[in-house]
């Protein structure tokens, strides 16, 4: 029986990671940027699960749970900041930022 090569799963993670990266770079809405960062983080998590299954170790899945919980902490701070930004600017568009420059 043919099995799927493990590299394909890693490739999937890499593709997801690139999608997230492109999202962060191209989006102008802060919430969507945060969402794209989440995609990147979860792609890294998927890569860990794949690597863990290659070596038949639990480490990869443990690491994935760590990534999930850290991402949750990050998002909670991020959303609080976005809320405050909306409060001050009435917008979540990065164009309304830009107070920091010469």
């Amino acid at each position: 029986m043919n099995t799927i090569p493990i590299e394909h799963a890693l490739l999937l993670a890499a593709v997801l990671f690139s999608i997230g990266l492109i999202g962060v770079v191209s989006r102008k809405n802060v919430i969507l940027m945060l969402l794209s960062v989440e995609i990147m983080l979860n792609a890294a998590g998927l890569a860990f699960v794949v690597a863990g299954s290659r070596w038949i170790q639990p480490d990869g899945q443990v690491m994935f749970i760590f990534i999930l919980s850290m991402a949750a902490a990050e998002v909670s701070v991020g959303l609080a900041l976005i809320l405050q930004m909306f409060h001050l600017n009435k917008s979540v568009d990065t164009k309304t930022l830009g107070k920091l420059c010469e």
Partner: protein
Amino acid sequence: MNKLITTQELFQLMPYILMLAGPVILLVFIAIKRNHIFSWIFTMATFAAVLFSVISNYNQSSLEISLLTIDKFSLLYTGLFAVVGFLITLFAHDYLEKTSDHKEEFYLLLVFATLGSSLMVASNNFVSLFLSLEVLSVSLYSLIAYLRRQEQAIEAGLKYLILAAMSSAVLLFGIALVYFETGSLSYLGIAAKMDSTGFTPYLIAGLAMIIAGAGFKLSVVPFHWWTADVYQGSNSLVTSFIATVSKGGMVGAMIRMFTIIHVFNNESIVLVLTIIAAASMFIGNILALQQNNLKRMLAYSSIAHLGYIMIAFISFGNGGTDAATFYLMAYFATTLGAFGVISMLTTSDGEAENISFYKGLYWRKPVLAAFISLVMFSLAGIPLTSGFVGKFFVATAGVKADLWVLLFFLAVNSVIGVYYYLRVIVMMFSNKDNSEETIICSKGLNAGMLAIVFVAVMILYLGIYPSGVMGMIQNAVLH
């Protein structure tokens, strides 16, 4: 691995336990009753206790548990961070009274961030490295945006959050690739596997991504875009924390990682690091030349300083790690001094960050002006200051490793650096013609003044008699 923890081990882990317990206790107190003076003193006591337990553990034999290594190296860095945390806390009381309406949580986040940074240096495993890095980062997000009524602070916090989360993702993907290739997350396991397989493509890609993620925290050149904005937008105490403890933690973590995993055997990685170092020095200095905002200037100059540290880093086996650690100490002292003064001169109207604010400062505040001059001399690397000795050690390590091109760049950049540092001094000694703004500074002996005196003594001590500290570093640092 399955044994229960012994009293001895508990004692050796005490610096980290204290940094965890201190803020938790403080949190309970804040929940019951808010009191700024109490929180302030309690935090200083926490840092003092951490320092005390570091000193009392310093001569113990090193402790190796599955996630952390507590040896002289990690204790040295932990002690250093505790001192920096203590000094920042000294500045913080007056500063928060002037600027913030919620004061107490600042201290919690400060101690947690210091804990993250200290654990990064102690990590001997990618799992603990990642977790401690996140403890540091998540505390920093909220610290940067701490003055939440200011649009600038929110903008800086959001920028840092998105970019830091992105860099964490890059770092994590790199770790995942290394794990995929070697089947181990501990440095030792990876090094053992690497000895048999060599540098495979997955491994090189993974290490490159790890270096990129670390480079973001260090704000070296291709990853430096956040630096100036975050330095300017966050309040000056947090800025000094980012410039010192956060970067120092990453440097320490990298030193530990690369003493076990020998990436310097691979020529392409060394080449990439060399390019990063050279580009950081030049781009940092050239961008700093054009700044009229002191915080932005220091941000760009920090990029250049990290470039200098990278030189020490590349000359790894030749005393480079000692030089990097010494340079960090020297840089810590000067940076703390610079941002400490900015925080002391800041009023509730805004940060004292514009360079014209310092015009004629000498005629109004001679002591502070003399101190800023000392800091600028040290940053520029004038003899008798810590900055000079730091550069000297870096250059010595570079000579031993035959990095002539980088040393030439170091010399050129030191000259460029002198120009913009001296500009600040010239500004302070020029006549006050348009100084309608008066500097309000609390009178007499306040806590910030104490910190400034300590920093000034450290700059001169490291500059005049470096061998005492250097001996301690050589004894502690990994080779």
